[in-house]
């Protein structure tokens, strides 16, 4: 059997299959109308566009909403730098200004300006011992 004969035999076998299948083919009108009905059931394009638009609006509302107010802050605990000692007044000793005041250049400090310390100055008035 030549190649051409083989091809002819194959074509005849397929042609017979085609004839038998054609007898079982559903009517075009029925299949086409069912397809059209199925498409209508899926929804019109306008309806789908409206749904899509509502979806976009809902998404925008979620993304653009005002951020929630921050929760109320708890009362701030007092800082260590604000602390004042209750017995600090005891350190207010007389003469502390001397320790806090730098010496003004040149000679010895003028004790005469400080009450109670004028005897320490080099003045001519001397305390006479009794």
């Amino acid at each position, binding site marked *: 059997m030549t190649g051409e004969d083989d091809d002819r035999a194959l074509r005849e076998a397929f042609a017979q299959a*085609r004839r038998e299948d054609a007898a079982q083919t559903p009517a075009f009108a029925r299949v086409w109308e069912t397809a059209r009905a199925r498409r209508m059931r899926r929804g019109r394009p306008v309806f789908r566009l409206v749904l899509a638009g509502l979806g976009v609006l809902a998404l925008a509302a979620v993304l653009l909403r005002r951020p929630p107010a921050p929760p109320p802050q708890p009362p701030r605990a007092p800082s260590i730098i604000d602390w004042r000692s209750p017995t600090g007044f005891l350190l207010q000793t007389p003469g502390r200004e001397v320790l806090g005041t730098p010496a003004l250049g040149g000679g010895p400090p003028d004790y005469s300006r400080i009450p109670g310390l004028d005897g320490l100055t080099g003045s001519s008035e001397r305390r006479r011992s009794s």
Partner: protein
Amino acid sequence: MTQPLEPDLEALHPASFGWALACCGWDREEAEDVLQEAYVKVLDGAAVFDGRSSLKTWLFGVIRRTAAGRRRRRWARALALGRWLGGQAALPPPHDPESSARASETRRALKRALEALPARQRELLHLVFYQDLTVEEASRVLGISVGAARTHYHRGKERLREQLRGEDRP
């Protein structure tokens, strides 16, 4: 626009159904569903004929992809159901037994021989011998190169002849 296509689709309807049958393992009910879904795609505008090939070649490509998509979804559902039930997935029968009963012996022999071939060879032989397409047109339907289509065609033809000779032997 689908209205101008309707007369052409009607003229191609018998050939389209034959191709849908080949894509669905000769399950008549499944083939009709596939063809219907392909028409829905045309009506929806999901499948648009752009004139780059013949209408028949384009439509056959739509039918083939539709059948493959349905097959994948069916497998996925069967696998998921099988896992959920904790047993073997119940797969649908591959062909329509009623159609098989009505078919002639020649038709049945050809169908058995074709089922023994790899899918690509089977599709090519159907497109060339059943649908009278050229190998080039068949390659466009299948989305493969012309060279690959010719290879599948020649190998498929040889194997089909061997299968049919085996069918002829007592």
